[in-house]
C-alpha cells in the first residue's frame, strides 16, 4: 500500500499529524540554538529549555484556535512557538533586541503576543493561573467562546493562587484548562519532596474534570486536550490535565552538574526510551504514514529556518537606551 493509501486508511488527519511532528521538531531545534547562543554568551540572562517536553505544548496547542488564550512559564519557548510565535521574533527577544516580541523589554521569560493569544510567559511560578482564569472569565462575560489554557510546572502545585484560580473557575464554570507539566523536578528538587498527596485529586477536589496523560505521547496529549478544550468551549467548565514528562536538560542551561539531585542513568533512560519526537516519528513511520526520508527532509527545513532566525536576531539592533522609559504606562 502506498503512503497516501495508508494515510487514508488510518482515518486520521495526517496533515495535522505532520504539523504536530514539525512543531515538536521546531521547538527542539529552537531550544538547541538557544542553548548554543547561551553557552556562547550571546544570550543574556537565563535559558530554561523545554527539550523533552515538546509533545505537551504541541499536542495541547494543536487543539486550540488562534484566538484562544495561553499563559506560559519561565520554561515557555515551546508554548509560545506552538501557539504560533515566529522564531525570528522569538530569538530577537531572547537576545534583547528591539525587533523582539516585547521590544527586548521582556526577554526569554516574558514572551507575550496578543496576535497569537499569548497572554505571556510568566516568571512567577503559578503566575499564569489567575491570568488564564481571568481571560476565560472575560471570554464568558463577552459571550465569546474562546478557551484559555494555563501551562504550569508541578512546582506551581505549591502556590496558593493555583487553587484559588481552580476554585473560581469551577464556581463560575469558566472555559479554562489547567495543564500541569510534571517534569519531576522543581528546579533542583524532586517533586516527591515537595508534593504531598496525589496531584489529580487537587483538581477533582474542586470538581474539575481531570485526566492523567503520558506527556511523551503527542497523540495522547492531543486527544486528551481536544476533549477538555471542546468541553470547556461548550460551556461545561474547566479541566485539569496532568502531563507526566521529563526535563531532559538542567533547570537552566548553566545547571550542568546535576548528580546531586538526579543520576545520569535516569536522564539517559528517558532520552533513549521516552523522547517524544522519536516516539511520534517512529509511530508515523511504522504506521506507514510518513517515510524516514520525508521526516529527515522536514528536520532539515526546520533547521534552516531556525538558523536564519538566529541570524536575523544576531544582526538585529539593540533598543536605544532612550527607550527605557517607554511602555511603562499605556
Amino acid at each position, binding site marked *: 500500500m502506498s503512503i497516501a493509501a495508508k494515510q487514508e486508511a488510518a482515518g486520521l488527519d495526517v496533515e495535522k499529524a505532520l504539523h504536530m511532528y514539525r512543531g515538536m521538531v521546531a521547538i527542539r531545534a529552537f531550544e538547541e540554538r538557544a542553548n548554543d547562543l547561551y553557552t556562547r554568551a550571546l544570550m543574556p540572562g537565563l535559558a530554561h529549555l523545554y527539550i523533552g517536553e515538546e509533545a505537551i505544548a504541541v499536542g495541547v496547542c494543536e487543539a486550540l484556535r488562534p484566538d484562544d488564550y495561553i499563559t506560559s512559564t519561565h520554561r515557555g519557548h515551546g508554548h509560545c512557538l506552538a501557539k504560533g510565535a515566529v522564531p525570528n521574533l522569538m530569538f530577537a527577544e531572547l537576545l534583547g533586541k528591539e525587533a523582539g516580541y516585547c521590544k527586548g523589554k521582556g526577554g526569554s521569560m516574558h514572551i507575550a503576543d496578543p496576535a497569537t493569544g499569548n497572554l505571556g510567559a*510568566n516568571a512567577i511560578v503559578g*503566575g499564569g493561573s489567575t491570568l488564564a482564569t*481571568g481571560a476565560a*472569565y*472575560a471570554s464568558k462575560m*463577552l459571550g465569546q467562546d474562546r478557551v484559555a489554557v494555563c501551562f504550569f510546572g508541578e512546582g506551581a502545585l505549591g502556590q496558593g493562587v493555583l487553587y484559588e*484560580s481552580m476554585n473560581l473557575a469551577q464556581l463560575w464554570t469558566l472555559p479554562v484548562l489547567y495543564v500541569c507539566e510534571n517534569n519531576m523536578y522543581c528546579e533542583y528538587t524532586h517533586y516527591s519532596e515537595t508534593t504531598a498527596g496525589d496531584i489529580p485529586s487537587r483538581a477533582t477536589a474542586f470538581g474539575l474534570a481531570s485526566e492523567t496523560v503520558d506527556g511523551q505521547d503527542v497523540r495522547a496529549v492531543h486527544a486528551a486536550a481536544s476533549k477538555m478544550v471542546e468541553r470547556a468551549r461548550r460551556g461545561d467548565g474547566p479541566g485539569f490535565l496532568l502531563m507526566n514528562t521529563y526535563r531532559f536538560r538542567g533547570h537552566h542551561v548553566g545547571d550542568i552538574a546535576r548528580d546531586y539531585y538526579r543520576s545520569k542513568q535516569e536522564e539517559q533512560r528517558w532520552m533513549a526510551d521516552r523522547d517524544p519526537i522519536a516516539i511520534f516519528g517512529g509511530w508515523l513511520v511504522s504506521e506507514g504514514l510518513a517515510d524516514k526520508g520525508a521526516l529527515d527532509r522536514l528536520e532539515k527545513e526546520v533547521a534552516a529556518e531556525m538558523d536564519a532566525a538566529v541570524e536575523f536576531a544576531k544582526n538585529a539592533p539593540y533598543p536605544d537606551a532612550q527607550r527605557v522609559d517607554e511602555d511603562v504606562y*499605556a
Partner: protein
Amino acid sequence: MPDTAIHPERSRGTAVREISYADAIREALAEEMRRDPTVFVIGEDVAEAGTPFKVVKGLVEEFGKTRVVDTPISEAGFTGLAVGAAMAGMRPVVDIMFGDFMTLIMDQVVNQAAKIHYMSGGKWKVPMVIRATMGATRRSAAQHSQSLHAWPSHIPGLKVAIPSTPYDAKGLLKAAIRDDNPVVVFEDKISYAKVKGPVPDEDYVIPLGVADIKREGSDISIVATSSMVQVALGAATMLEEIGIDAEVVDPRTTWPLDEKTLIESVKKTSRCIVVDEGYFRYGVTGEIASVIAEGAFYDLDGPVRRLGARHVPIPFAPPLEDATVPNERDVVALARQMCNK
C-alpha cells in the same frame, strides 16, 4: 481646566447638591457601568451586602450579579482574575475591603498588573481599578486599620489616587476606570459617611496627576492627603485665629504626582508641613518632602516638616490608637513653631 470644574462649590453661585463620600463613589461606579458594558465590580460581599461599608449598595439591583460579582474570600485569586479579564477586554473594578489586604494581592498587582504592559513591549494593557480602603480610628486594630498607599506608589506601572472629598472621589474614580492602566484608589473609611460635599449632577472626571489647593494661604503650605485634608483644613481654621494664613494643598494622586503645584505653593509660602495617614517612615510624606526640598530649596525658610502615622502597629485601645494618627492639634503646634507664633 476652569476653576469651576475643579471646585463646583465655587461655581455659578447656585446651589450644588451635597452628597457623602460613599454616595459619590457609588455614583461614579453606576455611571461608568451604564456608560461602558465592560466595566464590572468584583469582590467580597459587593452584591446584596454592598460591602460592610455599604458603599456599593444598590448596584446589584441595577446591574445584576454578573456585573456585581460576589467572590470567595480569595483576594489574590480574584484580583489576578481581574488582571487577566482586563487583558482580555474587560474593565474590572476590584473591591479590596480593607487596605490591609493589599498584602494578599501584592504579587498580582506588583509582579503582574503593573509590569505586563512594559514586559510585553506595550502590547498588552491592563485597564483595571483596585478600590481599597485606608484610615485608622475605627477601633479595628492592627490588621484592619492601615494606610498602605505608599506601597503601590513605589511601583512603576501603577497609578494611585487618594481622594479626600466626595467631588474628588467621584471624579478620580471615573478617571481611573477610563484609564488604560492599573489604578489603585484608596478610600478613607471614616470619610465614607462623615465627609459630605458638593458634587454636580453632570458627568465629569478629574485627571490623575492634578493637585488641588483646598484652601489658599500665604504663610505656610500644608500638603495633606486623604483623611488628613480635613485635619489640615481644621488646623488652618485654628491657625487663622492666631494670625497664620495656611494654604492646604491636596495632591489627590501620589502617582502621577503634581510636583509643580506643590512646589509653587511652597515657593509662595516658604514653609511646608506634609501630613499623611500612612506610616511615617519610608512613606508618602518622605517622598513629597523631598520633592519640595529639591524644587523649592532656595525659597524655604527651614526644613520641610512631616507628620504621619506613628511607627507602630495600629493598636486597639482608643487612647492608644488615637495617638498614632496626626490630628489638628499636632498640625497647629508644628505650624506655630515653624511660624514663630
